[in-house]
């Protein structure tokens, strides 16, 4: 079994060459765009536009390569709050996504049903049972869609996650449980979070396959997710994938990693950055040349600039939005309170 210790650079055979050229190039493009957008978001926080931001730096392969395996017409992804690159890959309106980080609306301002990407959710583990329910709904209706639930090593301790795994095992639901084990749940390392050392190993107890992949190897992630989805779609039931990766950035822009982890460890993982790793693999496989990289980077920068301008100038929500979405069928009392708000509060 793989362990989470960072092996020396290059000691893991890279199977990127195993990906079809077109998939690999698309994954690289989305990973690069996510990296640039992530960097831009940190800058927006530093400029005071975002009150805070949670970076996914280092987890681009785990997110993009898994999301790229989804069928955007049939499947549904349930994120927590660090899945920006999943949203990007699935084509979610990124200005709407980043609205959550600009504190314009907690869940973001995109349409989760149309995007097939759930609302941003800060209670880790909470959305995992939703994936099981959504997937069961597909089965009951005779459809072939699969759900993917994203969660982290910290969330794996939550009862909700264990309940969801068991439910999925019992119902044989078409779900992929995709754990990004980025080694640190805020300040708590794997050793103090995961009894037994492996989240994937727990799958056996819930009657499903548990697979550990190098989460910084885009091809390994993509192939594992694709196999799990194929299995789920053909009635084979759920799979738990544990992608071993690393959160290169602090937990959030207000976090200070020097309080709890070693710089040496960060440096060691920096050397395994999934982005240059995929770039090199693409080059070696003959899938990309300088012209390709330049073209991809130009495109990514232009896309990020559009998103940046969009979120920086997005209008704040109307005050009346406080009341608009509480109910489908609003109550008299709430209408009374809204009148009170208009008379006494509205600027």
């Amino acid at each position, binding site marked *: 079994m793989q362990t989470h210790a960072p092996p*020396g*650079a290059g000691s893991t055979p890279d199977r990127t060459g195993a990906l079809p050229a077109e998939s690999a190039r698309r994954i690289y493009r989305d990973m690069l765009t996510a990296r640039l957008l992530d960097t831009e978001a940190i800058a927006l926080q530093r400029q005071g536009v975002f009150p805070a931001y949670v970076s996914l730096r280092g987890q681009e392969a785990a997110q993009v390569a898994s999301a790229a395996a989804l069928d955007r017409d049939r499947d549904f992804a349930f994120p927590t709050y660090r899945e920006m690159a999943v949203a990007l890959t699935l084509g979610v309106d990124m200005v709407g996504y980043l609205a959550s980080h600009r504190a314009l609306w907690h869940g973001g301002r995109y349409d989760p049903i149309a995007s097939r990407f759930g609302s941003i959710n800060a209670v880790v583990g909470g959305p995992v049972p939703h994936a099981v329910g959504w997937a069961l709904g597909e089965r009951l209706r005779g459809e072939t869609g699969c759900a993917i639930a994203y969660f982290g090593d910290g969330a794996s301790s939550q009862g909700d996650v264990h309940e969801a795994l068991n439910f999925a095992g019992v119902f044989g639901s078409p779900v992929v449980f995709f754990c990004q084990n980025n080694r640190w749940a805020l300040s708590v390392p794997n050793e103090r979070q995961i009894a037994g050392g492996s989240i994937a190993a727990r799958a056996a107890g819930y009657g499903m396959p548990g697979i550990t992949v190098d989460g910084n190897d885009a091809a390994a992630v993509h192939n594992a997710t694709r196999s799990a989805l194929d299995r789920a779609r053909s009635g084979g039931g759920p799979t738990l994938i544990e992608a071993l990766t690393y959160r290169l950035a602090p937990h959030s822009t207000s976090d200070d990693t020097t309080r709890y982890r*070693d*710089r*040496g*460890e960060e*440096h*060691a993982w*920096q*050397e395994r950055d999934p982005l240059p790793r995929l770039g090199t693999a693409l080059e070696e496989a003959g899938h990309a040349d300088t012209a390709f990289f330049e073209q991809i980077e130009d495109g990514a920068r232009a896309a990020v600039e559009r998103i940046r301008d969009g979120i920086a100038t997005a209008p704040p929500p109307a005050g009346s939005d406080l009341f608009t979405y509480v109910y489908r069928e609003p109550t008299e009392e709430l209408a009374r309170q809204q009148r009170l708000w208009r008379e006494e509060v509205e600027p």
Partner: protein
Amino acid sequence: MYRILPADVPLRYTTAPGSARHPVPVLLLHGFGSSHESNWVRTGWGRALEGFPTVGLDLRGHGNSGKPHTDEAYTPSVFVTDIVLLLDALGIERVDIIGYSMGSRLAWELALARPDRVRRAVLGGFGPVNAFAGADLDRPGTDQSPFGQVHRAAAALPGNDPAALAACTRGQAAHPFTAVPAPAGTPLLFVAGERDGLADGMERLAQDTGAAGALRVARRDHRTTVSAQAFKKSAVEFLARAPAAFSAV
């Protein structure tokens, strides 16, 4: 975290991981009467060497390592044996060394005895002068010689064992430093304070050994050079140099 190597004299050491960019670990050898903690940690070398894997050792008679009281327990070759034992235990084939004062002398001895184990060495606060000139070796620390003063200050530090330090002094003095033979295959860098009398003659020694340099730190003496940024920068730059930089040596 510190660990204990259970040798004939227990040796306390510590290791820190580095990044893959720096494959050769750096062994830090402290000076007489000091310890890894006070020579290297409190002086900011941990921050300066960020990214380098490091090994820190409390030399016998110092810090939290064992402190025998016989002179023979402190000859240079005994120290060399300790260091090789530690490198073996850690599975480390070759190291770079940063030494200070007595630690530099030991780095020199190790490079002579086991050139296969030392890649490069930075020798701080060190020169070919007889460090013990004018010192009363029967009662170290009772005279006004340069070493007498060093000994007196060291023996007064909490945690130090004056009897062990006296034995260490005699064990070292019984085998005075000689500039010949020199460790020919090991690139060396000398650094000392401008006002460090214990490093007199450093420049000549550097020239004779074909060293990469002999840097004097402005306005610093033997004690205060340890924390100097110029010392750290030159050491880090020297250790990070590409191997090709030394192909002519």
